[in-house]
């Protein structure tokens, strides 16, 4: 449906068209969205736990986690509130390297990412491995600021950005695909921006 009188001059440059998923617009800034106040997690209080169901598999403190192999990833990110940001540079620990350090082959097909503020989000295990995702520690070469999820956030850049849990403190393998915080509140279980899977009613 064409909107009467709407002739925006603000189109993405045509060479970037194929990088912008349907319904998204290009953003130069880096907006902040979250369900509650920004937790201030000091690195001395920080830890990361890998769990299979309720059972801890391995736990790292800040120093131990930072000693894991570090990788860099520069990716386009897509927020469900319709902005897309190009070429965001991150550095951190690939989920593959976390699993390797724990000496574990993923035992289930589903994972919940857990956060310090009680937030959680579900991601299929297959979307976390083979270099697709990391726990990010640096953004643009600097520690991630608290409002963007620092000290550490999950980065799953090929899914809508709410799946990239801020203030992440663990991953939990689950037997079934269990909805997390926003998924319980009407957001999509998978969240593929290219299929516009924003809300639970989207196919």
């Amino acid at each position, binding site marked *: *449906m*064409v*909107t*009467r*009188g*709407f*002739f*925006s001059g*603000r*189109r993405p440059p045509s060479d970037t068209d194929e990088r912008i998923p349907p*319904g998204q*617009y290009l953003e130069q*800034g880096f*907006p*902040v*969205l*979250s*369900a*509650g*106040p*920004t*937790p201030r997690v000091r690195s001395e209080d920080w830890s990361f736990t890998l769990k299979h169901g309720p059972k801890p598999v391995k736990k790292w403190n800040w120093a131990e986690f930072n000693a894991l192999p570090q990788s860099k990833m520069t990716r386009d990110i897509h927020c469900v*509130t*319709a*902005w897309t940001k190009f070429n965001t540079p991150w550095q951190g620990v690939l989920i593959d390297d976390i699993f390797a350090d724990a000496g574990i082959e993923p035992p289930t097909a589903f994972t919940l990412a857990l956060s310090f*503020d*009680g937030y959680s989000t579900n991601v299929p295990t297959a979307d976390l491995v083979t270099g697709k995702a990391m726990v990010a520690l640096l953004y643009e070469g600097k520690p991630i600021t608290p*409002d963007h999820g620092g000290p550490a956030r999950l980065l799953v850049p090929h899914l809508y950005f709410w799946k990239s849990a801020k203030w992440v403190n663990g991953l939990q393998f689950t037997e079934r695909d269990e909805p997390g915080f*926003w998924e*319980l*509140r*009407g*957001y999509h279980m998978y969240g593929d921006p290219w299929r516009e899977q924003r*809300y*639970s*009613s989207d196919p």
Partner: protein
Amino acid sequence: MNAGPQPQSPWQAATIARIEKRTPRVTSFWFRPSRPFTHLAGQHVDIRLTAPDGYQARRSYSIASAPEAGAGIELAIERLDDGEVSPFFHDVAEVGDEIELRGPLGGHFIWEASEGGPILLVGGGSGVVPLMAMVRHRTLQKSAAPVALVFSARVWDEVIFRDELIDLDDRRDGFEFVLTLTREQARRPADSSRRVDARMMVQAMERLPKAPRLAYVCGSNAFVSAAAEALIEAGVPAGLIRTERYGV
């Protein structure tokens, strides 16, 4: 609580039924959806504008009207001069135009009168919009839940819904309106003229019979961060604070 977007919330055409200027920078638009629409206080809609070549711009707007108001969905849109969508509404949109919207959306920033109070609401600028829906919902439900609204605006003339809020405050029925102006002297005796801080939150909570069950904070990202920190400093547990950030 966990209503979330309704299973049947695809895009639909909605007709602009009424337009009313609220402040020099904020105008209200009432939309009449073509399909049944039931929302909860605090939810938003997504709006999609389509240019003749198919280009689309999409934004979220909170619903200002109470679910039981009935006269269409009110959106209060602030004009950002160099923005893409908000100037369209202020300069181009007219009564009778059809606009595509989707919703209601959002399953977290919601309050139903049946959940009770006390509730503390904190809004900055157009961040008052979803809080207004909660206040109006409380009134229309004849709820006795104690509710305090802390509203931060730049100047007196930019206080959206000002007369309505003062009227509701004057009823003394458990709704408390705490206004603060950041660039002008306060006009009412109990109001402040500074940015929100912990002391202001303590004063607002003193106007509630007991500590709030939940606090709702809405506005720009900078406002929400500052207000949430003020609440925490004033002793409100972080887990009781719900936030809605308008992005940048």
